[in-house]
């Protein structure tokens, strides 16, 4: 008979899984799968790729489980695994891109910098599902580089210099991308369009 793991804490499940108990690992996957998938989706904004990479992250997690020392929570450790996979994936994609989207985005960033600041909370007054859809669309209008900076900063709570090292760019570029991404996100959420600015 299968053991019921639903009331067992993560740390104990990790110990069981480290001994080769796949049922304990399955419970960990069930608990954290939405977060791991959401992190991949935030960076890639493609359902199929996010699904594949999040599953790959779990496979890697199983293989490296003995390296998990419990310095952070298991969920945090797994988000690092999936973030690294996404970064590798984006690097490979970037090599295949024929033109530099990044350069275009840095240029268009100037528009957002000059936007008037309205005293409005872009997330106020919206239902959560509607808000999610808007954020999804807004993220889709950011380049992978801008989304990555946002995710690494806002979710992984990485400092500018850590992000710069991870992404292989300068701290100035990180600051600029972060600023542009935040303002564009805020603008899109508030329903602003560039045409309205003219």
């Amino acid at each position, binding site marked *: 008979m299968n053991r019921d793991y639903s009331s067992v804490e993560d740390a104990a499940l990790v110990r069981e899984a480290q001994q080769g108990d796949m049922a304990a690992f399955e419970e960990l996957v069930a608990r954290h799968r939405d977060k791991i998938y959401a992190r991949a989706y935030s960076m890639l904004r493609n359902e199929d790729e996010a699904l594949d990479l999040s*599953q790959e992250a779990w496979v890697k997690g199983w293989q490296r489980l003995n390296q998990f020392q419990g310095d952070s929570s298991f969920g945090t450790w797994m988000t690092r695994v999936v973030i690294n996979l996404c970064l590798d994936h984006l690097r490979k994609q970037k090599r295949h891109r024929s033109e530099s989207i990044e350069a275009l985005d840095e240029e268009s960033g100037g528009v957002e*910098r000059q936007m008037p*600041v309205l005293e409005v909370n872009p997330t106020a007054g919206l239902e959560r599902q509607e808000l999610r859809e808007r954020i999804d669309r807004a993220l889709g209008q950011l380049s992978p580089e801008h989304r990555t900076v946002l995710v690494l900063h806002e979710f992984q709570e990485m400092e500018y210099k850590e992000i710069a090292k991870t992404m292989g760019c300068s701290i100035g570029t990180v*600051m600029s991308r972060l600023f542009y991404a935040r303002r564009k996100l805020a603008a899109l959420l508030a329903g602003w369009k560039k045409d309205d600015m003219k």
Partner: protein
Amino acid sequence: MMDEAKQLELQAFLDGELPPAKAADWQRRMDADPEVRALGAQLKASNEALAIFEAETRVPASRDFYWSGIRRQIELLEKASARRHETEPPLSWLARIRQYLVPAGVAAAFLIAGMLATHQVRMAESGHPVRLEASLTSPGSFTYRDFSSGITLVWLSYPAEKEFAEIDSILNIP
């Protein structure tokens, strides 16, 4: 309106990336200037928005379907790993010797070098000059010279890695 450099500095303040003195200065500006305050609020809103976004995002697959993909992959990898272990040929006698000989040779070289160096210091202190030389290009060789008695001793670690490779290629060992 703030220029670009100031906007980025405000962002750095909000992200806790400024030194305390500059941060205090920006805090005063936030309190006093509505434009700074509004831009600050807008920059911080992305954090809230992303938190909602991730909280509302779900795996677009059932628990069983999602897990079965992971389990299948794990099982495939473990089977492949087990198969590799089964089909791996046992180490040849030469490979077994090499496993121990190379580290033992390196350890012996350092031991002898240490003994000679100690000897060199003692001889120098007693007014009897000797010299120990080690070449960077050949890390496995040491030369000992005793000038007063006219002795030169060259110590080489043997067999060298290259020679192992040559032996391997001759014997057709992968």
